[in-house]
């Protein structure tokens, strides 16, 4: 590119002599860089693909070295005994050695990259540790009652806090939890999903208002939901504490959560599908029922089941509304009813070691129940329909087998 000189350039030059003289013949100002194909790259970069054995060694080596060094420092030399110091010093030394190793082969960019990788991985390991220790803590402290069959089949009628584990169990709490949750689900499922359908499919100014209020109410702390039902149903209207009241409290808490989650899921259904269905002449109702809801089914299942998992584990609304029965109650409208979180809570507060162990056993049961729900949610959420069923695939494979083998070979 050639630069054309402005005509007033000489006058500028006369007034400001500090500016170097502009050459009369414009020299080429830009040039293409020349590459030396054989030269080593100016800054060597680590490859982004699979790690070579060298790189693997330089990543794992520092941590192995730090392990030994940390043991030497904390357990042998310095007065920092205990596993906590050992792990902390190991992590610190590992970071330092990683940085040193990276500095040996690269510049500060590599050091920062390697340190960030170690830090991020370390954070993830801490979180994994939290999950593992949570499960371990519950199971290790609560396995003793779990070995007795009556723990799953009996209730706590006539069982004192000091009685041994071959008496009493959590059956009443499990049944209570399931009944309360069932009632809450019967209320929230149609209302929640119906509201989500209204907000996404019908729309309008009123739907915006509903969405605003529902989103605001997801902020309602669960204890305040419980307090609401307690004030209205039990104090003002004079009903006794019952499973029904607890179910209503859980429903008040869960309804905005499920409605909002379902709304998010329905909103990401591609509008092309909706328009295709409408263009084929389907009514809006048929479109929602036959296109939108089946498309969103996995997401809806996940939203609902995660809401259920939240509802089954929430203690505070139940604490205020259900009362705690020590025996099996099957009728939710008839007096006090126990549930798993409340059972755990009351046993832990009792302070009796046997009762606390029993509470941990119940917590293990609750954890297992949540895990079960979670696995069911995952199974339901697996995208189905995009892939034909196993039987169809086998049949087509068998029919096409000769032709495929001929084509391929």
């Amino acid at each position, binding site marked *: 590119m050639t630069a054309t000189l402005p005509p007033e350039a000489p006058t500028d030059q006369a007034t400001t002599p500090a500016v170097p003289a502009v050459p009369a013949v414009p020299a080429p100002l830009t040039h293409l860089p020349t590459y030396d194909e054989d030269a080593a790259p100016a800054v060597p970069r680590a490859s982004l693909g699979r790690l070579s054995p060298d790189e693997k060694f330089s990543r794992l080596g520092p941590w192995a070295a730090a392990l030994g060094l940390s043991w030497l420092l904390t357990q042998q030399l310095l007065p920092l005994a205990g596993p906590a110091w050992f792990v902390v010093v190991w992590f610190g030394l590992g970071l330092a050695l990683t940085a040193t190793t990276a500095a040996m082969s690269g510049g500060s960019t590599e050091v920062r990259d390697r340190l960030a990788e170690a830090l*991020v991985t370390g954070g993830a390991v801490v979180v994994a540790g939290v999950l593992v220790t949570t499960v371990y803590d519950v199971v290790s402290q609560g396995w003793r009652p779990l070995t007795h069959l009556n723990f799953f089949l009996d209730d706590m009628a006539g069982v004192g806090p000091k009685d041994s584990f071959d008496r009493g169990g959590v059956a009443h709490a499990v049944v209570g939890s399931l009944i309360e949750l069932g009632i809450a689900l019967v209320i929230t499922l149609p209302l929640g999903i*119906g509201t989500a*359908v209204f907000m996404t499919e019908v729309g309008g100014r009123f739907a915006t208002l509903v969405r605003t209020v529902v989103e605001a109410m997801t902020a309602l702390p669960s204890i*305040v939901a419980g307090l*609401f039902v307690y004030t209205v149903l039990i104090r003002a209207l004079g009903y006794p504490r019952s499973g029904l009241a607890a179910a209503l409290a859980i429903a008040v808490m869960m309804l905005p959560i499920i409605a909002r989650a379902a709304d998010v899921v329905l909103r990401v259904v591609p509008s092309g599908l909706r328009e295709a269905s409408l263009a084929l002449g389907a009514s809006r109702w048929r479109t929602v029922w036959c296109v939108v809801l089946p498309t969103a089914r996995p997401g809806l299942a996940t939203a609902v089941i995660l809401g259920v998992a939240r509802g089954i584990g929430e203690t505070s609304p139940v604490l205020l509304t259900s009362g705690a029965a020590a025996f099996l109650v099957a009728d939710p409208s008839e007096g006090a009813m126990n549930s798993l979180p409340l059972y*755990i809570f009351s046993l832990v507060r009792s302070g009796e070691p046997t009762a606390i162990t029993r509470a941990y056993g119940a917590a293990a049961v609750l954890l297992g129940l949540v895990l079960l729900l979670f696995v069911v949610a995952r199974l339901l959420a697996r995208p189905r329909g995009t892939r034909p069923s196993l039987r169809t695939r086998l049949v087509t494979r068998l029919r096409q087998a000769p032709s495929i083998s001929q084509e391929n070979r």
Partner: protein
Amino acid sequence: MTTLPLPGTDDDVRPRRISRRATGADAVFEHASRAVGASVLVVTGGVGLFLAWQAYPTLDRYGWSFFTETQWQPEADVVGIAAVLAGTASVALVAMAFAFPLALLTALYISEYAPARLRSTLVSLVDLMAAIPSIVYGLWGFSLVMPHAAELALWLHRNLGWIPLFDVRGSDPDAAVWDASRYTASAFCAGIAVAAMVMPMSCAVMRQVFSQTPPGEKEAALALGSTRWGMIRTVVLPFGRGGIIGGTMLGLGRALGETIAVFLIVSPAFELKWNVLEIGTSTVSALIAGRFGEASDAQLSALLAAGFVLFLITLVVNTLAAVVVGRSRSGAGTDA
């Protein structure tokens, strides 16, 4: 064989009238879903209005002193939420101090560093952690974490005790036998348990946003010679800023309202203080859980007022989170 209809041959065929008004089954559907929406609006909005209505007498009676008084002694007609609000804030802030870095690092690990085969498993594990009941985290914090947290608190007091935040009154950090009971049942211990509870939630939001980073921009950064961390710093983090802030605030909103984990761990104390490591604090929700049973009608109204204030705070936090996520570039990609 098909023929094109010639214009003007069929005079009796008129274009059908187009109307957006729903007819037949559609009208039923529209009105039914509108009724469902209205009923949900009445129920959820009713809860909020009821709380405000019930809180009004208390707020009217005590006025500003409701927010400045630290003691909660309804029998002496002294009711205020200053101490419990401060306790709520301190527990939530301790929780976020632990949960924010861990959530960010875990989200980055899952979306950027984890092997592709493990990724979906890790996502499920984080979701599972979010589904673990809070009472289980309460038990975890109560029995497993509290002794270690007390030791950490002692160490912080011994080395950073000159900062008022880490001071523990009534305890000598250099004593030969340390007074462990001064360091347990504190906002710090409760905060750790709450952190374990809210961390997966924030992490899930952050990971969701990180995974929406345009792959073209990431690859461009790598193609320009960036390291993986350079790519994260210049592409993923700026893109996900909205998600980071929004996820953190969602976690904060949950941490503010957490009841049982806090109620199990802290020993109640009504005192306005900075010392998060020191025994004793109280939060609004723990106050409600502890006092609802023996409350008279007036006291119940005071508790409802406290709950209403808590609800307003979480509402503000959640709304800010929604606005931040919605405004940012990362929020735009969710609507496919």
